[in-house]
């Protein structure tokens, strides 16, 4: 049985971007419904982490100019300074407004700290605000597909109520904000299980473009066999090989990631945190209370013993790729469809390097506000409309040939191998990427031709598999097309950055994946380039 409802603005996803979008849309006078696959408060990567927002006071003005300037330089041509200033400003003005629900702590110096929040408390506070301002929050209501009018503009979404016998829901809205997060391709990134790229797939099915999908090559340390991808303590880590030989690792950053990945290809890597300063050791459980859980439960003294580590891919989460937004209000190319947070592409605010943590958090907050506000304005300005709505979902819901059982677990395992393997996903080359492409295309075809999730429980799993495969295919195609190294995207067969690639790379397509440069070179430019060379 399907329940049907109407709202001005529908938000898909209840992490920090979706929550801020819901708050902004409500403030703009709209009725708001937020649907979340899990529980709005614990679901998504913010809830398990400690997001520090990009945070620079407006005074002196030079401070922001310096920070933005440094980010533009590091971003290797893909950043947009005006956007960076905009999200710094929105974050600075907005985050403290959560004070009634979040107890912002006072530091040892007696200053209130706003920028660094703890994930569980932050999401609990945002949930409390949503409940207080009258947002209708529907937990355990995963969305399966968007609904559109015959002209292609977005009219709502449809999904299942997974705690009510997988019965259905259908919600009609004048605007839909996709805030379903990015994806870490089912790696061990903490808190990322629900982040399967659903919002990317739904946007592509509606006709929106993706951007920056090649920037998915960030990896994060965790104790082996765990998903505790919280890196602070590792800033003082010492690494060893199995023979106890200390490794001469770079101190931090992408260079360290690449060093450790190479070391892990040779064998187990052990870690010691003995160099962490004593005062921090004593307060670690108050900084990040979940970090000691792993060590304490395994009987490891993290400050004396050596323990094995691993690297989990961050995919698009500490990467940058997502749905391309156009204009100033986070609308996509599809009327009525908006994208926020990791669901949206972020090269303009992060550049070609990871926006992990600070920039991505400021973007999630800011894009949520912008999308929620714009969605409310659009919806409230629409007249009554009638007509037949079309469900836009295809793969995993409506097979192109005879439906039959598809082994989704092995499809997902194949996807995961391609996206986690260092030689495929981190140290990229045309040969490795082509091999990934073949594997992923075969898996996609199997799901597209035969998988039919029905109302009896596997619709969500089939759609998650479709979204993961679609995202992985856009990522691989984009990494192939960007035949250079830039920021976090490393091509071992094309180590230098190319001037003509100093721009965004768009991608999309379902059965036939495509990529294209945002500003294709004109004939004149090409001729000029040939003359110069």
């Amino acid at each position, binding site marked *: 049985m399907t329940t049907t409802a109407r709202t001005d603005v529908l938000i898909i996803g209840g992490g920090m971007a979706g929550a801020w979008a819901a708050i902004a849309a409500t403030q703009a006078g709209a009725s708001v419904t937020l649907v979340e696959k899990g529980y709005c408060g614990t679901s998504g990567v913010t809830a398990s982490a400690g997001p520090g927002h990009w945070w620079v006071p407006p005074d002196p003005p030079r401070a922001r100019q310096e920070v933005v300037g440094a980010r533009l330089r590091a971003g290797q041509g893909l950043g947009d300074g005006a956007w960076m200033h905009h999200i710094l400003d929105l974050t600075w003005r907005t985050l403290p407004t959560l004070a009634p629900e979040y107890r912002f702590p006072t530091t040892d110096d007696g200053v209130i700290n706003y920028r660094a929040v703890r994930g569980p408390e932050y999401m609990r506070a945002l949930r409390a605000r949503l409940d207080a301002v009258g947002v209708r929050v529907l937990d355990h209501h995963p969305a399966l597909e968007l609904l559109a009018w015959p002209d292609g503009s977005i009219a709502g979404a449809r999904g299942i109520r997974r705690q009510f016998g997988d019965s259905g829901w259908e919600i009609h809205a004048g605007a839909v904000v996709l805030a379903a997060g990015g994806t870490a391709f089912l790696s061990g990134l903490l808190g990322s299980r629900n982040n399967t790229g659903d919002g990317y797939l739904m946007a592509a099915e509606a006709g929106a473009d993706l951007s920056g999908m090649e920037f998915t090559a960030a990896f994060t340390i965790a104790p082996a066999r765990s998903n505790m991808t919280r890196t602070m303590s590792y800033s003082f880590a010492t690494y060893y090989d199995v023979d106890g030989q200390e490794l001469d690792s770079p101190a931090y950053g992408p260079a360290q990631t690449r060093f450790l990945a190479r070391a892990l290809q040779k064998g187990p890597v052990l870690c010691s945190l003995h160099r962490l300063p004593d005062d921090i050791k004593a307060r670690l459980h108050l*900084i990040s209370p979940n970090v000691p859980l792993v060590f304490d439960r395994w009987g490891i003294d993290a400050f004396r013993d050596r323990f094995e580590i691993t690297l989990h891919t961050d995919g698009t989460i500490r990467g940058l790729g997502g749905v391309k937004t156009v204009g100033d209000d986070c609308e996509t190319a599809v009327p009525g469809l908006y994208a926020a947070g990791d669901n949206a592409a972020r090269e303009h605010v992060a550049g070609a390097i990871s926006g992990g943590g600070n920039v991505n958090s400021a973007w999630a907050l800011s894009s949520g506000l912008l999308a929620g506000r714009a969605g409310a304005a659009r919806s409230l300005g629409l007249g009554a409309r009638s007509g037949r709505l079309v469900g836009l979902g295809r793969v995993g819901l409506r097979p192109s040939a005879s439906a039959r059982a598809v082994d989704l677990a092995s499809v997902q395992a194949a996807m995961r191998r391609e996206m986690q393997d260092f030689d495929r996903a981190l140290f990229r080359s045309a040969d490795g990427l082509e091999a990934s492409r073949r594997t992923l295309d075969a898996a996609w075809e199997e799901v597209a031709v035969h998988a039919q999730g029905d109302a009896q429980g596997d619709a969500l799993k089939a759609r998650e598999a479709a979204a993961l495969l679609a995202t992985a295919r856009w990522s691989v195609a984009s990494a192939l097309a960007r035949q250079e190294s830039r920021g976090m995207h490393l091509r071992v067969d094309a180590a230098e950055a190319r001037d003509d690639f100093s721009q965004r790379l768009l991608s999309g397509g379902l059965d036939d994946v495509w990529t294209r440069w945002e500003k294709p070179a004109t004939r004149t430019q090409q001729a000029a380039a040939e003359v110069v060379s």
Partner: protein
Amino acid sequence: MISLLLTDRCTACNVCVRICPANVFDAHPQGPPDIARPGDCQTCFHCELYCQADALYVAPECDQAVEVEAGAVLAGGTVGQYRRHSGWHEWAGTYPNEQWLMETVFRRAGEAAGKRDLPMVGTEGKMRTQQA
């Protein structure tokens, strides 16, 4: 992965059923919930944080189920630790939130590594400062 539900502690409030992002639990008409889908657990420990009865235990292994014995787990003293150190519920005020120290740790690490000119932004290393 979720390993134990201590039925003698559980008050059947079903908060875990409601807040588990992976929908691991099923409410039961009488008594404690069932751990119906342990394989879906994402090892985020949120159920422990929200459980005021300290009736849940999540093992750190994220990819495989591990057999644990209730007596040994309780003797280990880590049941309820996450909720206590987070200062939730009755622990409010006892264990302060010192998340703000994170950025000073990264700064000191940069200094220790001889990177006194660590820029405010511009390296992934510094960006990780505010995330983890």
